[in-house]
């Protein structure tokens, strides 16, 4: 095949010295053809990024390539001298990273940074880097590129920074662009912009893209072919179409089943039990066998070989040798857990016009010169045993709403009533007493536990503070009970949090919140730091707890598929205000507000071929310190009229459960 651009053979990369190095990449082989997008899919810690860094020869100091070859066209990358390799990096191979904030140098202008790449890798334009930089910025779709040239990274938004990163990578006119989770740190609407840009650039320049991601949605959106990586190996490779239609490896199948969707509502999500095995061992068996529910005798005895399957496809599984035993793995929704909870009587929690404004201080005397209106008049209500999902892009004030209700951040106005009692005025002991009724689960399970405390003490802390649970002995009993409840062994109580994986830590956090028997829990993106398979475990647990204890959730998230699976009602937030709310069916099936429509259309869908039309939102969310006049959304809205520029639309009721703030709808 002449059109093969990159060929990787038997790549092995180990990290660390000593007797047990981490075998981060353990015999990876793949090919990328010119002009195609090749996705490397996998959970965190399975060696995706290490593969990319090995290709660029940018491994961390402890890493080294043990064996393998990588051919870029006719060049063997691993045999190049460092001098020549430097020419390839940023020349024929460009790379963009996950975190646009840290990938740009904060003290140099955009022109400087792009110019540097141009000077190094584009000799023809060496003398006129500026005009080439303008060209590049135009190519990545940055409006008013001439003005942007002299700006510093902090003056750009996240999406813009990622575009500048892409522009820098394009400066050397690369034949291969390695994109390491390019959109993970970005919001859905910005993600849609960046993915569309990548596709567009690829069509224009004919470069190949190696896309590294953990997001099945992104894969199905942009990739031509996909390879699934697990524990340092490729376990399946196929065209995207075939992969989505019929994943061959049990792991890939499970990945699809564990995705929360509206179709699986009420049922339990399939979970992959356990976690990725430690890569310090020398595997003598299938790496997935401990977590596989189709494992056979042979799986524990020998490692499966790579079996070709059609053009460029293949799978690494013993099941391929025994096609007969293949169990039908079509999704069977568990009908047992129906939505028993009906729209109920009284609301448990109700906010009226809740406002949280942060003052901006300036000058020597710290005069207040303005306010960041993080939350600016939010009305929500949650009934017992129901889940309200609060969705929106980052920075729209979702988290502040949650903290404002719990009085972790003091609201500046409005009211929050819990079980009929006003919370906003409470202080000291009165507030402390009510703390046990309301709890919070945080996004980052690592940061939400004191690394210096034992798990048992962490869980007991709330009981101790609330003086419940009786003596130390009975409290201890309760801790063990809770651990069992969230599916952890009892001896976990005497370990430190760092001895657990991300999913297990989130379980501990849930156990901690449950310890004080709350009736209401704010879940602040509890699964966004977790892998898909682990996310399913946590979502199942949250569902079970709700049905058992009739707990209400305020589920703060930006992940629409989680919303459609878990929530009863949805509130969409934009710039501190709720623009639309209603039941999950109403809002997700027929979004009324233009922002909701755009947000939903930007979510990459897995069932490709449905002819989804992405409503492209231009630009980013404005700063909540200086919101636009009139409707906050009008500068980005495609349907904005003059009216929208002048006044903020009042909330209009569309049905009993549904309200929307838009001039399109009138009483």
């Amino acid at each position, binding site marked *: 095949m002449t059109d093969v651009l990159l060929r990787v053979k038997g790549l092995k990369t180990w990290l660390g010295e000593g007797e047990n190095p981490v075998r981060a990449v353990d015999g990876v082989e793949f090919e990328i053809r010119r002009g195609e997008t090749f996705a490397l899919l996998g959970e965190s810690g399975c060696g995706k990024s290490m593969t990319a860094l090995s290709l660029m020869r940018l491994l961390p100091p402890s890493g080294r390539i043990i064996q393998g070859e990588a051919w870029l066209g006719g060049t063997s990358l691993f045999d190049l001298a460092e001098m020549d390799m430097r020419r390839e990096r940023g020349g024929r191979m460009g790379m963009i990273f996950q975190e646009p904030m840290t990938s740009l140098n904060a003290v140099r202008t955009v022109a400087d940074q792009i110019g540097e790449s141009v000077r190094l890798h584009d000799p023809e334009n060496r003398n006129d880097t500026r005009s080439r930089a303008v060209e590049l910025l135009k190519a990545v779709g940055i409006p008013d590129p001439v003005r942007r040239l002299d700006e510093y990274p902090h003056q750009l938004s996240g999406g813009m920074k990622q575009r500048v990163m892409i522009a820098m990578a394009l400066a050397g006119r690369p034949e291969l662009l390695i994109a390491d989770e390019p959109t993970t740190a970005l919001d859905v609407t910005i993600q849609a912009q960046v993915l569309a840009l990548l596709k567009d650039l690829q069509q224009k320049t004919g470069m190949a893209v190696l896309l590294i991601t953990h997001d099945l949605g992104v894969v199905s959106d942009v990739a031509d072919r996909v390879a699934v990586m697990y524990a340092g190996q490729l376990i399946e490779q196929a065209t995207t179409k075939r992969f989505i239609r019929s994943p061959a490896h049990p792991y890939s199948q499970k990945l699809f089943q564990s995705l929360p969707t509206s179709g699986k509502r009420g049922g339990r999500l399939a979970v992959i039990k356990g976690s990725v095995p430690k890569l310090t061992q020398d595997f003598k068996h299938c790496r997935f066998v401990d977590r596989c529910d189709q494992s056979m005798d042979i799986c524990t005895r020998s490692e499966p070989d790579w079996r070709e399957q059609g053009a460029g496809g293949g799978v690494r599984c013993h099941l391929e040798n025994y096609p007969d035993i293949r169990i039908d793995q079509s999704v069977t929704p568990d009908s047992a857990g129906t939505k028993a909870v009906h729209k109920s009587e009284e609301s448990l929690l109700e906010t009226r016009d809740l406002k949280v404004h942060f003052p901006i201080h300036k000058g020597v005397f710290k005069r207040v010169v303005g306010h960041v209106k993080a939350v600016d008049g939010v009305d929500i209500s949650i009934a017992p045993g129901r889940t309200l999902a609060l969705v929106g892009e980052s920075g729209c004030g979702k988290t502040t709403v949650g903290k404002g209700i719990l009085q972790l951040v003091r609201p500046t106005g409005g009211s929050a009533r819990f079980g009929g009692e006003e919370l906003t005025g409470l202080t000291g002991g009165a507030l402390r007493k009510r*703390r046990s009724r*309301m*709890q*919070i689960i945080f996004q980052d399970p690592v*940061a*939400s536990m*004191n690394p210096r405390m034992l798990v048992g003490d962490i869980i007991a*802390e709330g009981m101790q503070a609330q003086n419940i649970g009786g003596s130390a002995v009975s409290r201890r009993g309760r801790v063990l009970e809770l651990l069992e409840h969230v599916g952890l062994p009892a001896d976990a109580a005497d370990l430190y949090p760092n001895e657990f994986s991300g999913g297990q830590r989130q379980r501990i956090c849930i156990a901690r919140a449950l310890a004080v028997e709350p009736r209401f829990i704010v879940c602040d993106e509890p699964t966004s730091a977790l892998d898909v398979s682990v996310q399913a475990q946590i979502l199942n647990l949250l569902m079970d707890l709700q049905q058992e204890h009739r707990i209400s959730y305020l589920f703060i998230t930006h992940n629409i598929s989680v919303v459609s699976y878990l929530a009863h009602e949805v509130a969409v937030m934009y710039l501190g205000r709720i623009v639309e709310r209603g039941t999950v069916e109403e809002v997700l099936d027929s979004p009324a507000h233009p922002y909701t429509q755009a947000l939903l259309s930007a979510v990459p869908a897995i069932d490709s071929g449905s002819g989804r039309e992405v409503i492209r939102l231009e630009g980013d969310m404005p700063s909540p310190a200086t919101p636009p006049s009139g409707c906050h959304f009008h500068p980005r809205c495609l349907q904005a009229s003059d009216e929208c520029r002048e006044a903020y639309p009042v909330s209009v009721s569309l049905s009993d459960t549904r309200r929307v703030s838009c001039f399109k709808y009138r009483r």
Partner: protein
Amino acid sequence: MISQLVILWTDALVFLLLLFATLFGIYASRKAHLRGPWRQVVRNKVGVGTLVVLSFYLVVALLDSVHFHPMLDRAELKGADATQSVEVISLFDRLVEGLRERQEKTYSAPLATRLYAKENIELPDGRVIRDFPRLTYGGAHLTDPDSERLPDILRLSAIGIIKGLVVSLAVANVLIMLLAMRSGRSFGAQGRAVLRGATEIPWKTVFYTLALMLMLIFWSAELAAKYHLLGTDKVGEDVFYQALKSIRTGLLIGTLTTLVMLPAAILLGIMAGYFRGWVDDIIQYTYTTLNSIPGVLLIAAAILMLQIYMSNHADEFNSLVERADLRLLFLVIILGVTSWTGLCRLLRGETLKLREMDYVQAATAFGVSNLKIIGRHILPNVLHIVLIAVILDFSGLVLAEAVLSYVNIGVDPTMNSWGNMINSARLEMAREPIVWWSLAAAMIFMFSLVLAANLFSDVVRDAFDPRLRGSR
């Protein structure tokens, strides 16, 4: 021998600090996050090597911190009702009594047998010549010093080194035996493992450093018994003895100062970071103001005030030693007052970061009180910063003492300290012929202490700093 213990202020504080350190050690050994880094420290070759050196300094300082009135011989005390002198000496003084008591007339060079200055000597036949007289003690056992001195020194050195070797071999064997008992291996196997460097703690390095130190000690003990190893000073006092006595002063200033500054730094730093608002403003303004006063000025003012007080109330002090001790205490306190700001600022910054951590928020959501949050969540998480700061500050403070004593606002002139030695060396350096050994002795002792402390603190910081942990 010991009749009545005298507990000086600084002695009490030293042993209080030792108690704290032991308690902290016990506490740390039960906490995995503290035990881990310390284990890393003792598994590091530089770490254990410097630890051995530092522990020798520590032993000297502790021995020198047990003071008492010595008993006098009955014969000297006819008629007196007291059986003790007003003199206060330490256990260490008693141990090296010879060094303390063998005073010459004036300067003599290291290992010399004659004074450094010419004097009129009356010969047995009545003639008076002007020559370098023999020392009263240094090399007094030699009949013809000019020819016998060098062989004698070599002989003594050899004896000392052999003694040191023998003792260190014995110590090593005992240690290996203990190790073998603990690990359940045979003596031979354990010994081979140690020599191969196959043990987790690099015992080989420990043994080498220990042997080196022991040989040095026995060598100097042999020579110091017959000569003045580092010469004598203007009034004929042994410089080696002075340098040894200075160890206590240096170590005390390095450690006690931190004891003084820690409460203020920790309490105020955490309060400022945790409560923010006006508490933060007040604390910040306090340390900014304090920081903008030159530290030396503040120290000079305090010490001068104390001097005036002491000269006005001379009767309150029983002995010179007590006077000097009070001044040392004051110096420690004032150094503590001027040096807490750095750590305070560090802790404030770290607390600002920690208070926004989710687990602090979670604790707030449980209604845990502020005091408990600080004690349970903030303090344990800034402890590594405190530890690193204390160990890094140590060598700086030892050097600061030298500088302050040099400009006469340090410890009492009667107290032995490296700073005072350097201060007196100022005049000696201007003499012709030059008297260099006071300065050299102070430098050697201070240098090896500060170097060991610095190397050790590097190892400790590497072990405790979470940002460095992943890089190796």
